[in-house]
């Protein structure tokens, strides 16, 4: 229940924020978000800044340049854009920390099972992929050339694809063996 509420509040907040254009309001809300996150603020803020740096710096710098050449004002836009993007990203990262996704979607059993299985499968694939990478590194002498790296990336993705096909079948049998499909229409 708590997680579903959290998810809903966050959704409303995020959509609402895109309707706000006054930097004073955006700044105020950002401070409010910092207060809400409490001790987690510095860590979250750092991650948010890293996440948005590339796009925001490029867009801001580009706009300042083009507006200056045209002799138009730019200050308000730069503050507004950066505050809004930072606020949204900060809120999302904060949510990601708080939210138990599985609990948030348990209003729909099918969705819940999809999420649980997906998280598990991501783990399996990641382990496989990291094994592949480590094996590749352990078998390479020095830095492999472009052709070798391309071939290895192709093999990795191919192995994942094959594994996915097998996993899907195996999980399906595993669920059937436990009677999962007998209770459903």
């Amino acid at each position: 229940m708590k997680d579903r509420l959290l998810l809903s509040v966050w959704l409303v907040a995020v959509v609402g924020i895109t309707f706000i254009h006054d930097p004073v309001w955006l700044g105020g809300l950002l401070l409010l978000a910092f207060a809400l996150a409490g001790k987690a603020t510095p860590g979250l803020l750092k991650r948010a800044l890293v996440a948005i740096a590339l796009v925001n710096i490029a867009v801001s710098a580009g706009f300042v340049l083009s507006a200056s050449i045209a002799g138009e004002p730019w200050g308000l836009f730069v503050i507004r854009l950066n505050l809004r993007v930072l606020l949204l990203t900060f809120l999302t990262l904060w949510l990601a920390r708080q939210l138990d996704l599985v609990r948030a979607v348990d209003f729909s059993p099918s969705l819940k099972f999809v999420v649980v299985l997906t998280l598990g499968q991501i783990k399996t694939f990641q382990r496989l992929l990291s094994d592949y990478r480590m094996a590749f590194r352990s078998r390479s002498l020095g830095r492999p050339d472009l052709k070798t790296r391309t071939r290895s990336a192709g093999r990795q993705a191919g192995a994942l694809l094959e594994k996915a096909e097998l996993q899907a079948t195996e999980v399906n049998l595993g669920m059937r063996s436990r009677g999962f499909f007998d209770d459903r229409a």
Partner: protein
Amino acid sequence: MHIPDGLIAPQVYLAAYAAAAPAWAYAVRKVARDFDESLIPRLAVLTALAFVLTTVMIPLPGGTSGHVIGVGLLALAFGIWPAFLAYSLVLVLQSLLFGAGGITVLAVNALAMGLAAAAVTVGVHRLLVGWGKSVGVLVGVWCGVVVSAVLVALVLGVQPQMGTDATGQPLFFPFGPAVTLPVIVIPHLIIGAGEALLTWMVLSVTGRRRVPA
């Protein structure tokens, strides 16, 4: 390449949600029918695969690398609608688990990079497969990547039309299509080639397409 939150006006992303909703509904129905009881495990595995595929790097000349999007591969291996659905779920997971990407722009990203890329890839592949399997895969995936880059550039490019404040400064993303098209599309001509090559290699390793598109 996907668009983060805060750059797109509500008019645009809400419209995208309105367009994406029937597409998602259709995709769920179609996938449920084709996969019947294996829907849940299959969708989960596909989503996990798509999620992990986006972490495989395409090596680019000069020691750098770019991310695989993987939609073309999923679309060719499993069909347009499963690829679209799996990719949409990936966007949700990336946003809710890691705060990457955004939820307001979810529909925009899902339509441009999921549905459009998948449909273009499969469509072009069908047209060209008569010329040879490799041609179909390579050109199909490349077209899918480029078309989705064009769509993303256009969505960003219309943002200056979405309003300005009293001083005439834009409320959202500030550049028109004359800027976004070259800046976004040109790099994707190369990224698309890398992705196409990788997809072609993967499909030739695994041999054959498993589920009819």
